């Protein structure tokens, strides 16, 4: 008896007996990730804050990736996207992802340019 729910997470690595059990399992996982984020945010290991990957601190990449992991499990298991048809799932997920990547790319590049204008240009703002 599975009520039409898919009861596997981590690509079948962990299997649950019922939907209720899966919910608690996902909660434990989300709590663990949040705890890791908070601990990293408080101690801020120097090895992670001093390493830059693609212009951003490694620790910030870790935070963003952990956030996306959390978002995945909320959408897939709490919002039941795992049980929806793949076409609906793709329509819901890829539309915002495409638009957001586009918007973020444009805005951040532009902001970096303005930062350089403030820094090197003939604009005085720190007075």
């Amino acid at each position, binding site marked *: 008896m599975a*009520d039409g729910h898919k009861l596997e997470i981590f690509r079948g690595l962990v299997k649950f007996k019922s*939907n*209720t059990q899966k*919910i*608690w399992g996902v*909660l434990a996982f*989300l*709590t663990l990730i*949040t*705890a890791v*984020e*908070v601990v990293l*945010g*408080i101690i801020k290991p120097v090895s992670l*804050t001093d390493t830059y990957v693609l212009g951003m601190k490694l620790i*910030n990449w870790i*935070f*963003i990736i*952990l*956030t996306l992991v*959390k*978002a995945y499990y*909320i*959408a897939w*298991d*709490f*919002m*039941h996207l795992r049980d*929806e*048809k*793949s*076409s*609906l799932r793709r*329509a*819901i997920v890829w*539309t*915002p992802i495409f*638009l*957001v990547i586009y*918007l*973020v790319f444009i*805005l*951040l590049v*532009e*902001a*970096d340019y*303005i*930062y350089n204008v*403030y*820094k090197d240009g003939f604009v*005085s*703002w*720190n*007075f």
Partner: protein
Amino acid sequence: MNSTVTTGTETSIWDGGNQPLGASYGKLMMWFFLVSDALTFSGFLAAYGFSRFKFIETWPIADEVFTHVPFFHGNYPMIYVALMTFILIMSSVTMVLAVDAGHKMKKNAVTWYMFATVIGGIIFVGSQAWEWGTFIKGDHGALETKGGRILQFVKADTGERASLADFAASIPDDRIIHERKNGLWFYQEPTLTSVSLEEVVEGFKADSNILIRTEVINEEGEKTLLDRKASLAKLAEATQVVEGANLIHNEYGSRLFADFFFFITGFHGFHVFSGVVINIIIFFNVVIGTYERRGHYEMVEKVGLYWHFVDLVWVFVFTFFYLV
């Protein structure tokens, strides 16, 4: 691809009888709304990223802004907001348990899980309000320069932040708040700061243990601390005292930080508030047996989608406002 399955010939295609994506009309419309709402929030967060990259060297450090926990004194960065995150995830769990119980037509279980969800939502909104109150009230106070930059104060011996009241001189002054009832016309002014600019300047000159900290972030990722001589020179540029934060002045640093804080957490808090209201309506519908008579609890599922979405957005707000 399983998207174009048309079930059975007996369903009427043109009367909305078929479900091409396997989801009911109501659920599909909820997803339409959630995707567009997700884009709205993304717009806000991307704008936040824009302003932050623009002032990347002077942006406030969230750990130094949100340091309070209700009923506890001291410096606890992140702890309370992490607790709020957990409360919201927990209320998401009770919601999904309510949906699960609804599938099994267990009315009592749905009732109690909905009740728990509403309580979780109320606690979260209350925490949000408290967080706003703390942020608006301010912590140590600061000075603002002509160019709108913020100067904060640090005790030289301990390296701790110094509040304005710790060192400000006491200069007798007759200046009182101009109230509307005393005005010739309908003019009034905002609340005066607890110490005046002269008091801060005089107190600073008298106390050699106080140094100025500017907004600029140095190589170590900390705010730059000026030495005593540079501090005195910088002090001459100050034009006013700032205590707390609003849309125009912000003692924690860049005013844009406060603006985005109010807009994004405010917009999210509004979502949580409306989610709580909708959950309460659904709760009473469950209690009076509306869905029991209808034969299914799909309404709980649809509202559940909205509630999880609110949780999902918070996960991102938490990362970009408090962690990164």
